[in-house]
């Protein structure tokens, strides 16, 4: 319904306006409706300004900035209406170490409420996990699962 979407949109938007600066340590971002007069069908647009930089088109953002913006948006929607679990497959691939740290801390905060499953190649992300499963393929084409001890 039209009001329900408007309400969801506004709540997610205000969460996004806090989540983005937390992920980027500054800057600002917000969502807007393409067509305010037609809330029932209007598309949604993102506007982004990384800290200290001029706001520009989304395309000019770097690979890591785009990924971190997307993660901030996904997490904002998630915070509004958490699902029981959240699965993220290699979202950290384009991120540098500092951003991976902030990403991992945010996941840790949200993990009281929901279960998180992170697929990753990154050591720093692995360190932030409560438990690790290793998938191996010693015989080509056949996957086996081992649990990796995180005692260290």
């Amino acid at each position: 319904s039209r009001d329900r979407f408007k309400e969801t949109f506004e709540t997610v938007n205000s969460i996004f306006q806090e989540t983005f600066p937390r992920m980027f340590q500054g800057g600002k971002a917000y969502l807007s409706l393409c067509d305010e007069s037609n809330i029932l069908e209007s598309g949604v647009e993102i506007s982004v300004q990384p800290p200290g930089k001029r706001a520009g088109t989304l395309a000019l953002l770097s690979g890591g900035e785009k990924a971190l913006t997307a993660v901030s948006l996904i997490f904002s929607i998630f915070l509004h209406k958490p699902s029981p679990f959240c699965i993220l497959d290699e979202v950290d691939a384009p991120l540098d170490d500092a951003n991976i740290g902030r990403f991992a801390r945010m996941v840790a905060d949200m993990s009281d409420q929901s279960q998180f499953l992170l697929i990753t190649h990154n050591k720093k992300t692995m360190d932030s996990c409560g438990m690790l499963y290793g998938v191996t393929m010693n015989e080509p084409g056949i996957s086996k699962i081992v649990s990796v001890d995180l005692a260290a």
Partner: protein
Amino acid sequence: MRIKRLELNGFKSCMNRTVLDFPSGVTGIVGPNGCGKSNIVDAIRWVLGEQSARHLRGQSMEDVIFAGNDNHASLGAAEVTIVFDNEEAFHLDAEQEELVAEAVAAVRDAAEIQVTRRLFRSGESEYLLNGAKCRLRDITDMFLGTGVGSKAYSIIEQGRVGRIIESKPDELRLLIEEAA
């Protein structure tokens, strides 16, 4: 509605019965390229009722059945079971309660909810809810009540994070609508 356990059997590269126990909190899945990590994500989507082979990187749904390797023949079926901890019994409002099948009402107060999906090479499918055969429809009905539903924002598949920012305005709207 926490995931307790996932079992794969003949699903993609999991030729043998493969079990993952899920703790609460943050769990990592690691391993070399091509070893089967994203296949586990596909298995979760599939057992939750994914109907599009393309969303599982296949051309037809049959692509999820173990296809064999140099030393083993392909298998005749794929099966995935997901077990949930039904700590907060999921909600069905009065109207939904009228509509859902016996199979769904039966599990509503169970301590655990176990969903199994099977696909045979013949093309035949089976769905089970706590061991009882049911229709795909019943599984999706039940998930609607639990907040698990088809939330595109709760599974971010490999490569998608870069594309989200470049989505069209309608696609972004859809993402938000799912949380409405």
